[in-house]
């Protein structure tokens, strides 16, 4: 039987609230991250995957964004109910984050060493020497070849790949149980992408961590993730083991995404794009959010919102799952 999830997001909704506006961008999202696994959250831009990730550590811009429903359980504690001081104790120490675009995500005015040792000292009462030692080890663990030199360098002196490794080192210094990586390789070139992903996968195994990987890249999912959840218009539409979902997608959207991925070994020369566009969160239809773009659409799809249900060995939010 599967163990208890380390991080259990239940029916999470995150929405925009303000003068005369109020709608949810993330709707009723449930995700479970188990010990020592990589969970990929996949979807196109604006599907709410990054906002879901940010809200775990309460890093979403508030106001105007608020958690409007659900809970985020980490080791039995609901993170959405934590005081700012208690949340700060979780950030970096229990759950760490790696962001996309590492060049702008590092403070340009301070050295890598200052950044890393500040993060160490934010959670551990250690001397400057020990903090430096921990930081150098984290840099080496993140796959940086010359940690001592990088320690004294400023972000502008680093390449994109090295910056992202510094971000990973920053996530590692306090030995968290979970790393949430939000599009960690999007800003990097392909060879560096592969190295960074390999490193994340190895770290998961070496340290027994769990990784939540936010991405729009199905190739990345296939190569590093154990399980995956596909998000569309703020909802999870399909989730399950990566092998199961990619081999036999049941939701027409997942199916469409796979058809839109170029393959070298495939005989079909043309990609099949998904027609239409993603509905805006403030103009969602009453029924299925994907109905307008779906080729299998029926009257029931337009009137009745489908629940997330078990189908074969995955969970699917569809009235007419693809067989």
């Amino acid at each position, binding site marked *: 039987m599967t163990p208890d999830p380390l991080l259990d997001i239940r029916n999470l909704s995150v929405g925009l609230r303000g003068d005369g506006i109020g709608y949810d961008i993330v709707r009723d999202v449930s995700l479970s991250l188990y010990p020592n696994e990589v969970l990929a959250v996949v979807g196109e831009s604006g599907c709410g995957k990054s906002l879901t990730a940010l809200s775990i550590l309460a*890093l979403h811009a508030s106001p105007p964004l608020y958690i409007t429903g659900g809970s985020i359980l980490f080791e039995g504690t609901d993170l959405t109910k934590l005081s700012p001081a208690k949340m700060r104790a979780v*950030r970096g*120490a229990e759950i760490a*984050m790696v962001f996309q675009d590492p060049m702008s995500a590092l403070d340009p005015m301070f050295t890598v060493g200052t950044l890393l040792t*500040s993060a160490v000292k*934010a959670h551990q009462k250690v001397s400057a020497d020990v903090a430096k030692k921990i930081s150098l080890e984290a840099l080496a663990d993140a796959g940086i070849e010359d940690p001592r030199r990088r320690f004294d360098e400023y972000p502008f002196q680093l390449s994109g790949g090295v910056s992202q490794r510094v971000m990973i080192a920053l996530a590692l210094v306090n030995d968290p149980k979970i790393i949430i990586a939000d599009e960690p390789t999007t800003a990097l070139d392909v060879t560096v992408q592969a190295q960074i992903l390999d490193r994340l996968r190895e770290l998961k195994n070496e340290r027994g961590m769990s990784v939540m990987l936010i991405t729009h890249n199905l190739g990345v999912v296939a190569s590093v993730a154990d399980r995956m959840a596909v998000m569309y218009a703020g909802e999870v539409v399909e989730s399950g083991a990566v092998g199961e979902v990619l081999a036999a997608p049941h939701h027409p959207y997942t199916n469409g995404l796979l058809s839109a991925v170029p393959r070298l070994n495939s005989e079909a020369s043309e990609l099949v794009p998904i027609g239409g566009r993603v509905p805006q969160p403030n103009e969602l239809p009453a029924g299925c959010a994907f109905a307008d773009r779906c080729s299998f659409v029926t009257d029931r799809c337009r009137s009745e919102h489908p629940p997330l249900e078990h189908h074969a060995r995955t969970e699917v939010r569809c009235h007419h799952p693809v067989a």
Partner: protein
Amino acid sequence: MKSVLKTTLLTLLLLIASSLAVFAAIRLSGGDVTAARLPASATAEDRELFRQQVGLDQPILRQYVTYVGEVFTGDLGNSLTNNASISSLAVEKIKNSAILGGMSLVLVFGVGIPLGMIAALKRNSWLDTGITSFSVAGMAVPNFWLALILIYIFATVLGWLPSAGQGGIEYLILPAVVLSAEGIALTVRMTRSAMIENLSQDFVRTLRAAGLSERRIYFKHVLRNSLLPIISLAGLRVGQIVGYALVVETIFGWPGVGQQLVNAVLRRDYPVVQFFSLLLVFVVTLGNLAASVGYTLANPRLRK
């Protein structure tokens, strides 16, 4: 090194150009240098004799060459009005102006930066509105008017502070406040907008995600980033203080360079005008130089 050499050469060129401009302007502005020195009953011959004595009958370019030669041999010349040596006059005036100007500069940054930080931290609160309104007023109100209002309130009505002159610290307060008012206002606004802009940078989110405290993020990381534009424009603040010192020292009877210069211009005391004008040019240039050196030191990209 190359940039230091370039800046030094440019500074020299600027000083030469300004000395020519000052030299010509004061001589072409009309007025009679003998009026201040000789009694009203002096004859035309007496006046002409005085002009010859001090060399004012010579062609202007020749006067300039003589003047530069004397300056380089360490002779700044004497005042035409009372024959006092300018070197002996300068020390006291420079000291007084340095006290007032230095105090104003301290106020510009020492008050401006913290107020701007508070406004940014409490943005859109009544405190922010108050600070921002005050800084708009500080920029809009002319300093001579502010001086008169403050004198009226604090010297005439309340009697807390002296209206003019020099003595203890209480004599310094009003002139320093008036001299720094606009600089404080501008620094508040710059600090506020820089802090707000930097607070929304990606790196702030990274630091939060690493578990750093809001206080540390704000006072260490966001502040350090926000100081760059303030440092880069610090030269302008120095220039402003130097320029306004003429008006403010005169209003408050503060015996400094500014007051001396205004009096000398009114009396057509050429050597005094020349020396003190160039001194101000030099101070402004030095201020800009210091600002650019400070910017280089504060910015890791330029320092490395």
